[in-house]
Each structure stands twice: as structure tokens, then as C-alpha cells.
């Protein structure tokens, strides 16, 4: 019984039930074998989608939503920076005191936080119920974003099937999230204008069709980041880097 409760709780906030950690993998295995737990998870997601469907007419004003999210995140980021600064200063003092010689600080292998956020959003949003606009035709998707993002959306042609899109947030920035599918694997494309892409520029830059593309790996997912005509694009999938590069 404890296993049922623990498994349900672990999978509760994982809409797509994708496995992103060993704990989730164990819970996912249990839910596949346990009929009651499977029904529980499916029932929860269905109830959620019915609720969402009942309220499509009355959306919270976009400005209010953005302001609430932005302010809260700003406060949190400020506190986090103060804490990180204190920890870093203390660490440096300890290192100097102990006269430990480090060849070099190794921070290059750590991805910026935004990469983790992007992967989280890719995992969470890909169910049809999460798409706010569903179409395989760019001309039908583009108008939906008018007024929702503060840039003219360009939907690039990828060698993958376009499925739809939705609005999401990265920090305080409104981002167009486009959904594709390639060989059965979901592929997400985040499009924004004001992303601080400098943070994502690494030494691993590769040139693809005249574009400088930066690859990342995060928790088994792969990302490609590039700039084009003033917009920032981040492609995410469980597909390999090589498979993703072919899509661009």
C-alpha cells in the first residue's frame, strides 16, 4: 500500500509520465503493473483536462499572469543570488586558508539554469490537452500567438511534423513553444526574442547551414540553441544531437 501511495505521489506532477529520475522510473514501473494505480493516474489527468476545458472562455488577463510570475521569480532570483554569493565567498576563503591548489575551477560542465527549465517544460507540455493551438499548418498557428508574444513569430521549417503550440514563460519572458514529432519522439521548439543567449554560448559551437548552433545535454535530453534574424531558438528532444541536427 505504501508503494502505491509513493508511486502515485511521485508521478502526480509528471503529466507526461516521462521518466526523468530513477525514483520516477521505479514509480512508473509500479503504476504500469498496478491496475488501481494506473486508473488513479489516468483519472487525475482526465479530471484536470475536463476542468481546463470548462474554463477556456475565461482566461486570466495575460498582463496579470505575467506580472505575478515575473515579480515572484525576480524576488526568488535575488534571494538566490545573495545566497549563492555568500556561499561562493565562504568557499573561496576556506580554499585560501587551507592553501589548496586547484588546477582550475571546473564550472564549464554545468549547464545554465535556463537549460534545466527548458527541459522541464519540454517534459511537462506535450500532451494534446496541453497544446493551446493544434495544427500542422504554420499559417494557422502563427496568428494565435499574435499579441501573446511581443515579437513577430517566425516558424522555421523543420524536418519534423508540426503538431501545435502554446505560450509559456522562461523567467519573465513570454516564449512561443512549438510542438513537433519526429519518428515517434516529441520535439519542442522554444522561440523567443530577448533570451540572454550569451549565457548559452559554449566552446562546442557547430556550424549548420550557416548558423552557429550550440548543443547541450541535460538529464538525457538534448538541446540545440541558435539565433536567427533576431530570434532565439531552442530545440529539445530525447533524440540524439546528431538526429536533432538533421531536423534543422
Amino acid at each position: 500500500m505504501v508503494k502505491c501511495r509513493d508511486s502515485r505521489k511521485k508521478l502526480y506532477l509528471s503529466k507526461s509520465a516521462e521518466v526523468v529520475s530513477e525514483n520516477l522510473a521505479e514509480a512508473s514501473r509500479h503504476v504500469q503493473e498496478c491496475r488501481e494505480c494506473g486508473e488513479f493516474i489516468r483519472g487525475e489527468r482526465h479530471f484536470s483536462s475536463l476542468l481546463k476545458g470548462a474554463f477556456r472562455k475565461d482566461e486570466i488577463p495575460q498582463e496579470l499572469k505575467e506580472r505575478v510570475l515575473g515579480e515572484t521569480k525576480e524576488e526568488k532570483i535575488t534571494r538566490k543570488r545573495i545566497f549563492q554569493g555568500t556561499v561562493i565567498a565562504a568557499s573561496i576563503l576556506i580554499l585560501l586558508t587551507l592553501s589548496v591548489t586547484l588546477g582550475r575551477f571546473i564550472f564549464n560542465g554545468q549547464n545554465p539554469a535556463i537549460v534545466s527549465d527548458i527541459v522541464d517544460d519540454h517534459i511537462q507540455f506535450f500532451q494534446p490537452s496541453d497544446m493551446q493551438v493544434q495544427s500542422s499548418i504554420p499559417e494557422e498557428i502563427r496568428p494565435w500567438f499574435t499579441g501573446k508574444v511581443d515579437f513577430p513569430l517566425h516558424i522555421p521549417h523543420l524536418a519534423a511534423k508540426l503538431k501545435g503550440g502554446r505560450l509559456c514563460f522562461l523567467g519573465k519572458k513570454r516564449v512561443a513553444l512549438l510542438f513537433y514529432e519526429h519518428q515517434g519522439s516529441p520535439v519542442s521548439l522554444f522561440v523567443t526574442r530577448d533570451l540572454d543567449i550569451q549565457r548559452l554560448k559554449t566552446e562546442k559551437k557547430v556550424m549548420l547551414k550557416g548558423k552557429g548552433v550550440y548543443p547541450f545535454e541535460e538529464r538525457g535530453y538534448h538541446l540545440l540553441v541558435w539565433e536567427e534574424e533576431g530570434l532565439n531558438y531552442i530545440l529539445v528532444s530525447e533524440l540524439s544531437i546528431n538526429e536533432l541536427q538533421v531536423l534543422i
Partner: protein
Amino acid sequence: MESDFLEAIFYKNGQYIDLEEEVFSKIMDEEVKEAIDNLPLEFRMPVILVDIEGLSYRDVKDVLQISPGTLASRLYRGRRLLRDSLCEYAREKGFLRRGFLRSKKW
């Protein structure tokens, strides 16, 4: 032991019943809104932000400044209260007769 996430699932003749579909097909939007308004604030906010607005769990836990585990628990309890309220309304209106549903205990 904590009862969260162990609520019995509804069965009819041993089969799973899509209770929500039955209820939602008959209840008007206004009743759903009223039921949500009547939820305690701590459960109402997760339901509104996650289920109605479709915000990401990461954003919601940041907005509410609570842990993922707390968000899961509040969302679970909010949905349970809302479901109970809608079921009660459906029974009062005769959409579901009393005793129609029986629960299975573990």
C-alpha cells in the same frame, strides 16, 4: 498513515466509471466556478493555476513558494474537494442517484 493519494477508486460491476465525464456533461460552468470559489484558498490556488490556467508546476510552486511535494498534496486535496462538491451537486440534481457509486477499500 497519511491518506493522500490512496483514495479508493470508484467501480461499478467491477469496472472503472468515468465519473467526471458523467458529472461534467450535466453540470453547468457556473456550478463548477462556484465549487472552485468555495474551495479553501490553499487548495483553490493550485487548482486554478494548474488545472484552469495550465501553468507549469515549476511556475506554480514558485508563485506559491511551496515545495513540489506540498504542491502535489494541495492539488490532490483540492481536486478531491472539488470532485466531492460536484458529485454532491449532481446527486442533489438527480444526475447521480445516491448509492450509485461504491468504493473499493485497500
